[in-house]
C-alpha cells in the first residue's frame, strides 16, 4: 500500500474511514459496558437479596437463647476467611452471630432497621461493601437484624474483567475494520494510481498517450486527454507541414532571383544592381530561415508524446554529420549504458544538436566528440567538443546573435546558434559555449524535472 501524502485523496479517505471505525467501535464499547454493568449489578443485587432472605430463613433462636443457623448458607464463599462475602445476625441482648468468613471487624447493622430489605454502600471488613439488611421480630418481640455484605470490589472485578475482554475484542475488531478499510481504499484508488503512473510516463516522454483502461468514472478524462494530445500533436505537425510548404513557396522564387542577380552581377553595366539584389536576397533568405525555424518549433517542451531518447536520437545525426563533413571523425562518448528519456520535442532537440554538431564539424581540424553525461532523474548534459581554433572569450556572447559569422569563408547563414538558443529557451534547456582544452565546447544542459 502506498503511504498517503498530505492533501491526497488517499489521506482523506483514510482519515474518514479511521474516524468512522473509531466512532462506531467507541459507541459499541460504551453502550456494551453500560448495559453489561447495569445487568451485572442488577443480578448481583438480586443474588444478595436472595442471600439475606436465606439467612433470615435459616436463623433460629436456640433454647439457650443463642442465635444459631439451622444449616450453613448455600454459598460456600461465606465460609472462607475474608472472602469478601459476610453475614451477621444481631439481636438485642443476645450474642451476635457472624459468618466464618468474617474473622475480623463487624458489619454496620443500621441498614437493617425495617422488615423491608434495604441496601446501601458501607465500609466492610475488607473495604467498601454493598450491604443488604432487614429486621424481623424475635420470639420475645425483640428486633433481629440480618445483614449480608459483599465487597464492592467483587462487583467491580466482574465488570472490569468484562470491560477488559470487551475492549480487547473491540480493539481487534477495530484493527481488522481499519485494515480492511485501508485495503478497500487501496483497491478503490488503484485506477487513480495507475492513472498517475501513466501521467508520469507521459510527462517524462516515455509514452505517446495516456495508456491503460480505466473505470467508467475516469475513463472519459483519459479519453479526453488523449484526444487533446492527438489534437495538439496534429496541430504541431500541421504547423510543420505549413512551414515546409511556405519554405518551398518562398525559396524557389528566391533561388531564381538569386540566380538572376548573379547573372546581372557578371556584367559590367548591371554589376551594381546585381550586387544589391544579391544582398537583399541574402537578407530575405536569412529572415526566411530564422522565422521558419521558429515556426517549425514545437515550443520545445513536450506536453505529450514520445520524448527524446538519448543516446538513440544522436546516432542518425552523427551518421549524417559524417557524410556532411567527410574526413572529420565524430565520436560518441556516453557516461552510462542506460538510456535517458527527456520530456522534450525530438524535432527541436534534433535541430539544436544538429546545429551544434554541424558547427563543430565545420571548425574541427579532425575530430568532434559528443559526450552524454550520466543521465540522472530526467536531466542530462550533452557536450560537443571540437579540436578547432575556438572563439576568443570576448566574442562568445556575440556568437548567439542573429547573423554572426566568424569566418565568411566557412559556409553558413550565421543563424544556427541564434536558432539553437531560441529553441533551448523554449525547451527550458541551457546552451553555453566555452573554450575547452582542444577547441570549442558547446554544452546543452537540460535540468532534471523530477522536482516538478
Amino acid at each position, binding site marked *: 500500500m502506498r503511504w498517503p501524502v498530505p492533501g491526497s485523496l488517499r489521506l482523506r479517505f483514510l482519515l474518514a474511514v479511521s474516524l468512522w471505525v473509531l466512532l462506531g467501535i467507541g459507541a459499541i464499547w460504551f453502550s456494551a459496558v453500560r448495559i453489561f454493568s447495569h445487568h451485572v449489578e442488577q443480578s448481583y443485587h438480586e443474588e444478595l437479596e436472595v442471600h439475606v432472605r436465606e439467612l433470615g430463613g435459616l436463623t433460629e433462636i436456640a433454647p439457650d437463647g443463642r442465635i444459631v443457623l439451622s444449616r450453613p448458607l448455600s454459598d460456600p464463599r461465606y465460609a472462607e476467611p475474608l472472602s469478601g462475602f459476610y453475614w451477621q445476625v444481631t439481636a438485642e441482648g443476645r450474642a451476635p452471630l457472624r459468618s466464618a468468613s468474617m474473622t475480623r471487624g463487624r458489619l454496620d447493622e443500621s441498614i437493617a432497621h425495617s422488615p423491608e430489605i434495604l441496601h446501601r454502600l458501607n465500609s466492610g471488613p475488607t473495604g467498601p461493601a454493598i450491604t443488604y439488611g432487614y429486621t424481623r421480630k424475635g420470639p420475645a418481640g425483640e428486633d433481629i437484624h440480618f445483614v449480608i455484605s459483599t465487597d464492592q470490589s467483587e462487583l467491580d472485578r466482574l465488570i472490569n474483567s468484562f470491560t477488559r475482554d470487551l475492549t480487547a475484542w473491540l480493539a481487534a475488531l477495530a484493527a481488522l475494520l481499519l485494515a480492511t478499510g485501508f485495503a478497500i481504499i487501496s483497491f478503490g484508488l488503484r485506477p487513480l494510481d495507475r492513472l498517475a503512473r501513466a501521467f508520469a510516463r507521459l510527462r517524462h516522454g516515455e509514452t505517446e498517450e495516456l495508456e491503460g483502461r480505466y473505470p467508467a468514472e475516469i475513463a472519459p478524462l483519459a479519453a479526453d486527454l488523449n484526444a487533446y494530445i492527438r489534437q495538439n500533436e496534429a496541430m504541431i505537425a500541421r504547423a*510543420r507541414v505549413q*512551414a*515546409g510548404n511556405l*519554405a*518551398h513557396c*518562398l*525559396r*524557389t522564387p*528566391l*533561388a*531564381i*532571383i*538569386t*540566380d*538572376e542577380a*548573379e547573372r546581372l552581377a557578371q556584367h559590367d553595366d548591371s554589376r551594381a544592381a546585381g550586387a544589391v539584389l*544579391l544582398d537583399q*536576397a541574402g537578407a530575405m*533568405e536569412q529572415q526566411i*530561415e530564422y522565422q*521558419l*525555424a521558429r515556426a*517549425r518549433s514545437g515550443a520545445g517542451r513536450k506536453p505529450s508524446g514520445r520524448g527524446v531518447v538519448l543516446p538513440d536520437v544522436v546516432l*542518425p*545525426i552523427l*551518421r*549524417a554529420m559524417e*557524410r*556532411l563533413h*567527410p*574526413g572529420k571523425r565524430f565520436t560518441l562518448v556516453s557516461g552510462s549504458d542506460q538510456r535517458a528519456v527527456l520530456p522534450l520535442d525530438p*524535432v527541436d532537440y*534534433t*535541430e539544436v544538436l*544538429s*546545429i551544434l554538431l*554541424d558547427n563543430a564539424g565545420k571548425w574541427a581540424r579532425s575530430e568532434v566528440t559528443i559526450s552524454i553525461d550520466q543521465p540522472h532523474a530526467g536531466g542530462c548534459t550533452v557536450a560537443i567538443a571540437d579540436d578547432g581554433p575556438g572563439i576568443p572569450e570576448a566574442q562568445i556572447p556575440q556568437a548567439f546573435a542573429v547573423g554572426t559569422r566568424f569566418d565568411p569563408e566557412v*559556409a553558413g547563414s550565421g543563424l544556427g546558434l541564434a536558432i539553437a538558443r531560441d529553441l533551448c529557451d523554449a525547451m527550458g534547456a541551457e546552451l553555453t559555449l566555452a573554450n575547452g582544452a582542444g577547441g570549442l565546447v558547446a554544452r546543452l544542459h537540460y535540468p532534471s524535472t523530477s522536482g516538478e
Partner: protein
Amino acid sequence: MRLLVVEDDPELGRRLTERLRAADFAVELATSRSEAEDWPDVGRMGAVILDLGLPDGSGLDLLRHWRDRRLETPILILTARGSWQDKVEGLNAGADDFVVKPVRFEELLARLNALFRRQQGTRATTIAAGDLALDPVARTATLAGAPLALSRQEFRLLHLFLRRAGQVLSQTDILDDLYALDDEREPNTVEVLVGRLRRKIGRTRITTLRGHGYRFDK
C-alpha cells in the same frame, strides 16, 4: 562530366541546367520523380542534383529507391526544405550532400567538386598522374608544371581520363560523359578529340584498344 538534375520548377530547372552547362557539365534534366526513376543510365552520371519536393512523389523515396538498387553515383540534395530533420533524413537515406535553396552558384559548384573529389578518395583539389595535373575547380591543367592550353571538350576528356585512369572507356562512355543525351553527337568526335589531346599531353599516355575503346595509363 554528365549530371542529372531532378527539379520540378521549370524556370529553376532551366537556369540550373544553363549554368551547369556553362561550367562544362553535360546536364540532363528530369522534372518529375517518375522521369528520374526511369532514367536509363543514372549509374553512369557524374552526380545527381536532386530536389526533394517533386510533384509525383518524394525525392527522398527516389533517393532510397536508388540506394536500395546499389546506385553509387554521388547525390546532392538541393531543396527548399531546410530543417535539420530533413537534412539528417536525407543524408541518412544516402545523399552525399545537402544544400538548401537559394544557393550561390559558386557554392553549389564547390560542393559538387567536393563530391567528385570524395568519390575519388582524395581530398586534394588537383588530380595528378605522373607530371600531368588537373584542377577541376580552377579549370587548369599543367604538364610538368607548364600550363596546358586545352579546349573545353579536351579539358573534359582529360578530366574523365584522369578520374578513371587505368580503366577501359568505350566511345559511348566518353560520349555520355561529354554530351547530354539530346546533344548532337558526331561518330568520329571521340577519335578527333583523343587525337588532339594526345598531341598536347604525349602520345604514349592514352592507349587505343581496338574494338574496346581507350585507356589512360597512370
